[in-house]
């Protein structure tokens, strides 16, 4: 659909999104606008619908009501709109989900070749560029199982970047990592944020949230309970549920 370019036009817009799993109401009337270059941290207790929310944005999960518009494309259930959105949005999973039978380089070069029709040599040079950006270029010919968790997650970030997306979704990217590897992944994400990437990160790393988030959003029971700039959000949360949640998080860290 035609769209006049406008600074204020959100890159990602969710309007009145409702999502059910069978009879379970997983997302309730979600409204979320993300401007280009904005960094959002999404937090909330386990089972509150954070993963479901970001997985609706690239249609890994269908939703029943409301609208999701990404870079001017309104998601319906057609493969045309789903393809268009997935070309613009990269995703990084908690469990990395690298392809174990392919080398690091092949993992990164596959989607540019298959989705964009990029020639192999060019796809590999794109792959090397982004592997260098996550500082893992010297592991290009290894298989995922030969890498540490932190290295695997950085490869997963590079793999998503190879499609040169306009926005990146992170679903608890450091939750499956040993503590000593969390920093290398967070540093990579901070670098990405500095370079102006639009990001939605589900994470409980509050240090990261303080450092890069423009807004922190708190979810519970499928609803957005409150949101705010990190300083305000952490210092002065409005809702009792947010305070309880933050208390628990801080006790664990």
């Amino acid at each position, binding site marked *: 659909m035609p769209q006049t370019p406008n600074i204020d036009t959100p890159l990602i817009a969710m309007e009145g999104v409702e999502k059910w799993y069978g009879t379970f109401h997983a997302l309730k009337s979600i409204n979320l606008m993300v401007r280009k270059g904005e960094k959002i941290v999404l937090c909330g207790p386990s089972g509150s619908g954070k993963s479901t929310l970001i997985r609706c944005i690239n249609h890994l999960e269908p939703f029943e009501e409301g609208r999701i518009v990404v870079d001017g494309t309104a998601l319906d259930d057609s493969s045309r709109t789903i*393809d268009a959105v*997935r070309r613009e949005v*990269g*995703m990084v*999973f908690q*469990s990395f989900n690298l392809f174990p*039978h392919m080398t690091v380089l092949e993992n990164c070069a*596959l*989607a540019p070749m298959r989705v964009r029709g990029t020639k192999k040599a060019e796809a590999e040079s794109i792959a090397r560029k982004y592997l260098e950006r996550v500082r893992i270029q010297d592991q290009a010919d290894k298989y995922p*199982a030969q890498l540490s968790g932190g290295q695997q997650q950085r490869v997963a970030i590079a793999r998503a970047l190879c499609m040169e997306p306009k926005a990146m979704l992170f679903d608890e990217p450091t939750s499956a990592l040993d503590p000593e590897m969390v920093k290398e992944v967070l540093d990579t994400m901070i670098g990405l944020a500095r370079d102006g990437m639009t990001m939605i990160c589900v994470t409980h790393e509050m240090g990261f949230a303080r450092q890069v988030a423009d807004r922190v959003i708190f979810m519970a029971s499928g609803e957005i309970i409150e949101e705010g700039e990190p300083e305000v959000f952490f210092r002065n949360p409005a809702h009792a549920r947010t305070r309880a949640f933050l208390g628990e998080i801080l006790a664990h860290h």
Partner: protein
Amino acid sequence: MNIIGPNEILFLLQGLKWTILLSAIGFVGGGVFGLLVALARTSNWKSLRRTTAGYISVFQGTPLLMQLFVVYYGITLIGMEVDAWVAVTIALTLHASAYLGEIWRGAIQAVPKGQSEAANALGLHYVSRTKDIILPQALRLSLPATVGFLVQLIKGTSLAAIVGFIELARAGQIVSNQTYKPLLVFGIVGAVYFVICWPLSLYGARLENRLAAAAAR
């Protein structure tokens, strides 16, 4: 004549040649159609899943002997001349595709869901997702069971004798009738089957151990 000389051995080897050829036909035909069956069983299309589930049940639930009979006499019944070759090729292909299709369906579903999610998130479509991501992992997972089925198939080809093939087992029966040395002849025939099937079984077991070790890592 009741000694087992070079002629008898040669006759048995002729039989072995058919056994190997029939196994190869069953495996290749069953492999190609089995892959289609496995893909149909894991498709998003419910009626396709149902139909192929029925197909698998029928061919796993009836003896191969009966399938050979039905195909051989069934085709003649509708008034077509059939070569025994055609009948056996069809029957073995149907039989093997049901078993391999079921083995590979299980393997496709055993590939972690995160793999197709990552492929989807990257914008990969069905063909690439299947060919580049899912099948290479599924086929590797299924290798032990696939080799196990191949061993069953090799032994199962002895049933092709009923439509006139003189494969290894049938050749043994003929030689035994001529020489009156059934124990010796079937001893030899059994040894030949064993020499072919045992290394395959060992290979399958080794693959299985290797997969288990990789999974435990």
